[in-house]
């Protein structure tokens, strides 16, 4: 396409033609796994690894379906928001409050959700994410959909997309990893605490499969720890990861033992307490 003696013109013309052709392409290509032929391809040119994490909403929704009930005083108090002065604390607690908001939304606690939204707005301004929630009219949308769990989860998904856009456009991918770490720790905290109260087998299964997320989270935090500011967090996450030993070797569905759940509860609670400052 780009072979031409009049190189600049050729590129411009080719690009224009490409653009023009692209406008009419509406067909999609849906392929399921069964239709793909298994083959081995060696790729030597791949030189970096990026991480994509699930939304806190998805994890909260999975936990809710497994029986995560609502216990009001488990979440981080909105009164703590002014205590977070370092950028790292602000990002981690942005994640913590995001998970709390998702937990409230999943349990139809609309007023609590709105309170967390206001807290997130306040924190987002501190970490320069000033426009993330400004234009979305989220409070009004939450109020208009009180009691409609399905609509509320779609609103939360919109918020996640808005945040992903913002982080991407402002090249804040590292911040995204720290925010996700906070959200993941809080969701795990809610899971282990509800399980401690109620002993829920399905919830233990859901907690067990979080090993897959933790591995990626540790990889991402390592990648963003150039100045060693995340070393403490990394050490704590690696310590938590030890409870999931055997996850990768397990042919069948991996499940945490009673002892591992107990120890996970202790370590997650200690880390979460360190972050929220209670």
């Amino acid at each position, binding site marked *: 396409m*780009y072979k031409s003696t009049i*190189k600049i*013109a050729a*590129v*411009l*013309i*080719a*690009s*224009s033609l*490409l*653009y*023009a*052709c*692209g406008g009419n*392409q509406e067909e*999609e*290509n*849906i*392929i*399921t*796994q*069964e239709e*793909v*032929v298994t*083959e*081995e*391809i060696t*790729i030597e*040119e*791949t*030189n*970096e*690894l*990026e*991480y*994509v*994490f*699930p*939304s806190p*909403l*998805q994890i909260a*929704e*999975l936990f809710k*379906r497994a029986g995560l009930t609502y216990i009001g005083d488990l979440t981080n108090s909105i009164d703590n928001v002014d205590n977070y002065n370092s950028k790292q604390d602000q990002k981690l607690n942005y994640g913590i409050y995001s998970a709390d908001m998702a937990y409230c939304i999943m349990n139809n606690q609309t007023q609590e959700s709105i309170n967390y939204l206001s807290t997130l707005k306040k924190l987002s301004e501190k970490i320069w994410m000033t426009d993330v929630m400004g234009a979305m009219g989220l409070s009004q949308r939450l109020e208009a959909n009180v009691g409609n769990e399905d609509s509320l*989860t*779609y609103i939360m*998904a*919109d918020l*996640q*997309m808005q945040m*992903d*856009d913002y982080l*991407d*456009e402002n090249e804040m991918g590292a911040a995204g990893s720290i925010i996700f770490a906070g959200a993941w720790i809080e969701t795990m905290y809610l899971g282990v605490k509800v399980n401690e109260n109620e002993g829920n087998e399905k919830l233990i299964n859901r907690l067990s*499969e979080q090993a*897959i*997320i933790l*591995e*990626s989270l540790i*990889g991402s935090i390592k990648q963003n720890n150039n100045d060693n500011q995340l070393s403490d967090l990394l050490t704590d996450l690696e310590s938590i990861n030890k409870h999931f030993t055997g996850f990768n070797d397990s042919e069948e569905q991996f499940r945490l033992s009673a002892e591992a759940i107990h120890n996970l509860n202790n370590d997650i609670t200690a880390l979460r307490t360190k972050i929220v400052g209670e």
Partner: protein
Amino acid sequence: MKRLGLYFTLIAILALSSAAIEKSDCDTRALKNELIKELRPDFKYDSSNINRFILENKKQGTEIQVPIFSSEKYRLLFNTAALPSDFEILIYDKKHDERNRKLLFSVKGSETDQHVFIFEPENAKTMYIDYILPGVEEEGISGCIVFLMGYKIS
């Protein structure tokens, strides 16, 4: 008359430049919105990733690690409309440096005229998405691939 011809040439170049910039510019929100339509009504937005490339005269690649829960349904979408070159998208079950990794999905830009691609994995755990771009003669042109994922909890 000569000057008129020069103006005409300049206007033509400017018009073509605008088209090229528009092509290489990565309007991520517009590209994402095109993918969002493909999630509805069954899947909810979960996460996304933008990979920006500057084309080089040598082959280049990036790998993205995507952890998912094997018991749930996911829809992975790719938009290559802002990528002014050939490409390959490959999805594996293991990292690029691990042996015996299984190819779950692949698409080559040179073999299709589409720019939206959809893949729904089944019983997968962590997936590894590889973008491979061949080397080009004209270096320095930018572009991007937008990846977006939705989930459906059964």
